[in-house]
């Protein structure tokens, strides 16, 4: 078993018990994808996860997910593989009015 740390934006901390970080246990072996970590979050913290993806599994339009400093929209989107030690950072995009 290895672990991925997910950084939670302030607006969503009420859905993870007020924590800034959530540590997700992922199976040892292959490196996890962003989608795999979100799948695990949907089980442990569903009210957090459903604000990142809709029920079809699509990343919400105005949410950005970074692996380290890279936006997954610039990589392989939710199939992006998370290297060992890299954090998953969830941030609201510039949006709204």
């Amino acid at each position, binding site marked *: 078993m290895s672990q991925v740390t997910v950084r939670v934006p302030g*607006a*969503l901390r009420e859905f993870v018990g007020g924590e800034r970080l959530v540590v997700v246990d992922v199976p040892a072996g292959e490196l996890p994808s962003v989608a795999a970590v979100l799948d695990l979050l949907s089980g442990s913290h*569903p*009210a957090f996860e*459903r*604000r990142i993806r*809709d*029920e*079809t599994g*699509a990343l*919400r339009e*105005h*949410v950005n997910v970074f692996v380290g400093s890279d936006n997954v929209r610039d990589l392989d989107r939710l199939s992006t593989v998370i290297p060992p030690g890299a954090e998953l950072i969830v941030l*609201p*995009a510039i*949006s*709204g009015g």
Partner: protein
Amino acid sequence: MSNYLLAIGTRKGLFIATSQDRKTWSIERAPLASDEVYAVGIDTRRGTPRLLASSFSNHWGPSVAHSDDLGKSWQEPEHAPVRYPEWTGSALKRVWQLQPGRDSEPEVVWVGAEPGALFRSDDGGVSFELVDGLWNHPQRAKWTPGGGGLCLHTVLAHPTDPQRMTVAVSTGGVYQTTDGGTSWAPSNRGIRADFRPGDEPEFGQCVHKVAMHPGAPDQLFAQNHGGVYRSDDGGRQWVSIADGLPSDFGFPMVAHPHRPGSVYVFPLAGDFDRRPTQERARVYRTEDAGASWQALSSGLPQEGFHPAVLRDAMCTDGGTPAGIYFGTRSGAVFVSADEGESWYELARYLPDVLSVRAAVLD
């Protein structure tokens, strides 16, 4: 002494106003996120009234929350309360309607959702399931989004027959079931669709809101995207009742809580000028099922008034005499405690008002 409660959904959160006399009010912002509140519901069938609110965050998406302490605290389930099943391939955009069900089914609450779907709750509005029969209707694929989205905005359960229900979709029109939701049929005969060529279509009309008095469930009233209508046969045939109104365009349609045949509308100049006619704030009421209309404007601004009133931004509280309420896109809320005869401003400078619901709490 009665307690009156008015829930005001706005583009930046929910506000709760309370009064004991409908003359003086206290108003507080509910402790919900600063999201768009397109629908509010007040379920008075429970021992403790339950408030329901839909929220939409441009970032975090939609949800539905409920409160059992008149809005002081709110709860929502961990898992999405309204969720399109995987086989639909769709995702919830917004909840446009939160409608408590029949008195005989106290745990049933209905949701009208975008994209065009009906959901049912059997746990008082905590979690909801898609009504497959409407989703599977072959005409659904040809429904098209109105300006606000492909919203199912009206849910009218027949008060005594649990097999019958009317819903309305922009833009799809009116649909009805007589078998408890298993099958649905369009019910738009007589309703115009000015925005498309050819003969009157079977479906696809942009019906903005439908109202029904529970004491006369076969008499329906519709505010259309161009056209105001009544049906006396449960929706099989509609006839125009727009004569006497300054315009046949508008969004709300509210039934008087005690007198069948009496409804309220708020006319706008037209599709391409969605402002009150003559720049005056006027609610119109009929007492004779649309044969004649009276302008109700005492106490309302009568010059330079530009904001529209959206489809769910007008309501009644069910009191005696009936209280009538409407909110504007400019963030004002107006109240009449005497069935519309006179009005005063309850609030101004709120965010634009998307939805209002009121109730008398004993």
